[in-house]
């Protein structure tokens, strides 16, 4: 084990000490290591380059809430080893649903119901029909994007209750806007759900080993339905917040949310194969991305370049999955050493 580590990262041994191996143990046990590392690096650099990111923290928090909310719901699904690619379209669609209904309260209820219904349909195709969740939710992504266009006549829908929208953008509690408060509430609720509630804890079992979960008497199908409904509901919530803040629903809303929310969850150490990860990890991932985005925007970096940076971070995060990295590095070495004789081990 030690030999292998020396092979892979000789640089680390220059700082060799007992404390370091202790750290390694912690990092090996927890999957949030990369998120913490990214957060530290990003915070340190931003603190030097653009300290305003931290002094005007309500802007940064607002950004974090924007990226993080959808990612929180997504985490529930990924914990079970499934994916929900429809989150961004759900956001756009539910926003349009809400804005097309004149009564504000009714609109919000309809949007949330739409989110739940989308979750149920996704789970139906995954659980009952037996399609892979990547493909089922990908089809849903296109379908809902189209539906949002149809419902809105391909142009932004103005919110009738404009005053409510304007009030929603104002700080409610100290410097905190309702968006940030809702984000904190959603974070607390989901964190409690997956760590303290039996049904939530069973998400880990479903993702870790589905057959064992089934044998242990866990209602696997119902848990997957719950997971997709959480994801749909949270995405709809994000759509409502977006619509309120902009006082209009844009059918193309959330096009960058898909990338950012997946990046937050995957950087946060939620394994795509399921069973490992945490809501806190996703929060840290979202925080590092939020600080990075605000920092880049304040330094005048174009949106295109920001997309490149976030895309690159997601790419690096997904290929350095902590659970398989060691085996993969072994594979990569074998692959480079000898062309056709290489016998990669299990990843």
């Amino acid at each position, binding site marked *: 084990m030690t030999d292998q580590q020396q092979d892979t990262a000789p640089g680390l041994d220059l700082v060799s000490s007992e404390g370091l191996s202790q750290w390694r143990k912690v990092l090996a046990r927890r999957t949030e290591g990369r998120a913490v590392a990214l957060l530290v690096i990003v915070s340190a650099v931003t603190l030097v380059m653009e300290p305003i990111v931290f002094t005007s923290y309500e802007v940064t928090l607002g950004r974090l809430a924007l990226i993080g909310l959808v990612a929180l719901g997504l985490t529930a699904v990924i914990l079970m080893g499934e994916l929900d690619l429809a989150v961004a379209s759900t956001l756009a669609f539910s926003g349009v649903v809400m804005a097309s209904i004149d009564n504000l309260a009714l609109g919000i209820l309809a949007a949330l119901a739409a989110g739940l219904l989308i979750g149920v349909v996704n789970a139906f195709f995954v659980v009952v029909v037996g*399609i892979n969740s990547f493909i089922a939710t*990908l089809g849903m992504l296109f379908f809902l994007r189209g539906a949002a266009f149809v419902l809105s006549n391909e142009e932004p829908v103005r919110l009738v209750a404009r005053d409510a929208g304007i009030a929603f953008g104002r700080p409610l509690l100290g410097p905190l806007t309702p968006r940030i408060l809702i984000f904190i509430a959603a974070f607390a609720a989901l964190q409690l759900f997956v760590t303290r509630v039996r049904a939530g804890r069973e998400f880990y079992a479903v993702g870790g080993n589905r057959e064992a979960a089934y044998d242990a008497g866990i209602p696997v199908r119902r848990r997957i339905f719950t997971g997709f409904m959480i994801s749909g509901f949270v995405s709809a919530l994000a759509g409502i917040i977006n619509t309120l803040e902009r006082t209009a629903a844009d059918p193309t809303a959330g096009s960058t949310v898909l990338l950012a929310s997946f990046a937050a969850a995957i950087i946060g150490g939620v394994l795509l194969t399921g069973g490992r990860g945490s809501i806190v990890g996703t929060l840290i991932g979202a925080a590092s991305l939020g600080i990075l985005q605000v920092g880049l925007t304040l330094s005048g970096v174009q949106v*295109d370049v920001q*997309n490149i940076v976030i895309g690159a971070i997601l790419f690096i995060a997904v290929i350095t999955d902590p659970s398989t990295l060691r085996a*993969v590095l072994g594979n*990569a070495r074998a692959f480079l050493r000898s062309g056709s004789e290489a016998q990669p081990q299990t990843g």
Partner: protein
Amino acid sequence: MSAPEQPPVETQDAVATALEEPAGLEQEQEFKLLPWLADRGIVLFTLVLILFAAVFVDGFASLANITDVFNRAAPIGIVAVAMTFVVISANYLDLSVVAMVATAAVTLIAVSNSTGSIAMAMLAALGIALVYGLVNGVAVGVFKANAVIVTLSTTFIGLGILRWASGGSIYFGPQDGAIREFGLAKLGPFPLSMLVLILITLLLSYVLTRTTFGFLVKSYGSNRAATRLAGVNTAWVVIGAFVISAIGAMIGGFVLAAFSNTAVSTNGTGYDFRALAAIVIGGTSVFGGKGSVLRTLLGVVFVSVLTNLMVLSGLGFGLQQMAIGALIVAAVSLDALARKAGAA
């Protein structure tokens, strides 16, 4: 998903089928609708659709319209037949064709405008395509990362670079260059780009069915562990599939640029799911291991005729996207249900 759901039932079924093996031959001859539809349905669907279009939709059966269908089918078809390799290798799909098609189109027109050499522009685009294929392939094949997320991130990186470099501007080709001539060239009612599509389909069909690489792609798609244990360097199989997909997207971008004689960074929008729709409606399985390039060609005909019908009937972009999204889910559901029915 069904296997972990009801392991006891599945196991019993497996045992039961194993015991009744002598009767298996008779069972094969028994007609089952779902597996038949999933396997052969595409021919029926396409014929019905074309018949319906010819009879009920005004303006479909005109020469100008059919040439237009071919013109639009060619780039999407080239992208789809090449992406079929990724799907058969059980890596879901290659979302990065969106970025690759646009990059190839812009590179072809912009570089040939500035250097005056089309060959140079094509070489530059080929270099970019190889980078795309290698990056996606190494991430998925060597690092065992999820193909959807990898290609999602490379799409954003690629489109970001393209928009940043091009500033989002539209590039126009010269009015009398070779690119324009290719875009306008016809063989009877068929645009020359259709010939390119057919040649590429035949070539890729040969690669998939007659070469060791093609065999390994199918084998890897149906059983990764077994393929690896057989001593195959599976990383090269995955890299190969993604390189083919990237080069296909590049040629699709060339054809698209030649057809319109313009190029812009939004050129590739929609190519990911239109190509996926063509692949799955053709009967290639997203579960991997099963499928063919010729099936995808049929799927392309279906999707192109359907899109044309929707445009002729005045359906908006939103409804078109809804229809194609529903089509993907329906085709994959049919495949999944057929598997269940076939296994029972």
